């Protein structure tokens, strides 16, 4: 996730950037060490609140900017409950930052943030049917889910299909079926697997699947 906000940091005047989620807290940051993570997290949460309040008044809200004497804080919502913010010198190029936010936002929507957190390991893939609502899940994601379900079969055996479908139903009720939320789904599956060794084994099995999916 860090590599895309690193691209923001190369913009003249940008001191650093961060991605924050209302539940998970700070997801990525590339500020100088003088900016403590706890403080950045508080800033992020305040910005999330500010964005929510702004959204109540303005349906077409895009960015927030807070102009202080020393610096400017600019924030953009990536999805509900998640935003990216940058702290900049007052002389920063706002047009360039806005354009970079647009690009980053597109990348985020495509789910291109999860790759840096997923370890690599080649493994076999088996396929099985995934019974999820077609209206809710894109065709490409359905393919991935089928492979993940097959991988779970290697770890859990015959109960895998039932477990996967149950978890999938719950996951779909919690948010959009986007690749950016795949780690939440995996975490839910891990909670069903329970045994750490099997959790690690499942991660090994699905890592190449996730990588292949991301490469398109």
């Amino acid at each position, binding site marked *: 996730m860090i590599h895309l906000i690193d691209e923001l940091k190369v913009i003249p005047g940008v001191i650093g950037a961060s991605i924050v989620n209302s539940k998970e807290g700070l997801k990525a940051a590339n500020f100088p060490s003088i900016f403590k993570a706890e403080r950045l997290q508080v800033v992020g949460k305040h910005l999330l609140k500010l964005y929510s*309040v*702004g959204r109540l008044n*303005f349906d077409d809200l895009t960015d927030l900017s807070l102009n202080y004497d020393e610096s400017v804080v600019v924030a953009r919502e990536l999805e509900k409950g998640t935003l990216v913010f940058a702290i900049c010198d007052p002389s920063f190029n706002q047009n360039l930052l806005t354009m970079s936010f647009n690009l980053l936002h597109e990348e985020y929507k495509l789910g291109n943030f999860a790759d840096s957190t997923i370890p690599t390991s080649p493994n076999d893939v088996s396929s099985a049917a995934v019974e999820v609502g077609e209206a809710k899940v894109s065709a490409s994601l359905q393919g991935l889910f089928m492979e993940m379900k097959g991988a779970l079969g290697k770890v859990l055996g015959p109960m895998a299909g039932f477990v996967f479908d149950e978890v999938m139903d719950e996951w779909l009720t919690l948010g959009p079926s986007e690749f950016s939320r795949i780690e939440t789904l995996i975490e839910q599956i891990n909670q069903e697997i329970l045994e750490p060794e099997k959790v690690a084994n499942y991660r090994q099995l699905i890592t190449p699947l996730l990588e292949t999916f991301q490469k398109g």
Partner: protein
Amino acid sequence: MATAVDFVERINQIEGVSGCVLVKDDGTLLGNTLGDTEDYSGLLQVTSGLSADIMNNVGFSYCRYICFNRDNMQNFYVFPIANYLLGIVQQTDCSVARMLDKVYHLVSRVSTGGAGSHS
């Protein structure tokens, strides 16, 4: 109170300002050239509080203004002025930098007590 009304009128005359609202930090309305003032009063109060929290958390010294950027380009600005809050709606086709300069100039004069003798 007459000074507050004058101040709002002067802000409203700045090129690029579509309308404005001035409230005390407790939400009391002092002047308004916008509709839906009650909503904006709440927004002004919450915005001011959160921006001050961020300022104190990071260690910034002074908040000049907060901007809500909108797709329709009618951006909304919040200027904290001592115990008052000024909200401004920007016109879609204007020189934003020039408008902000003029507003900030007037706000600075109010902050330093200059506006009272000039209005």
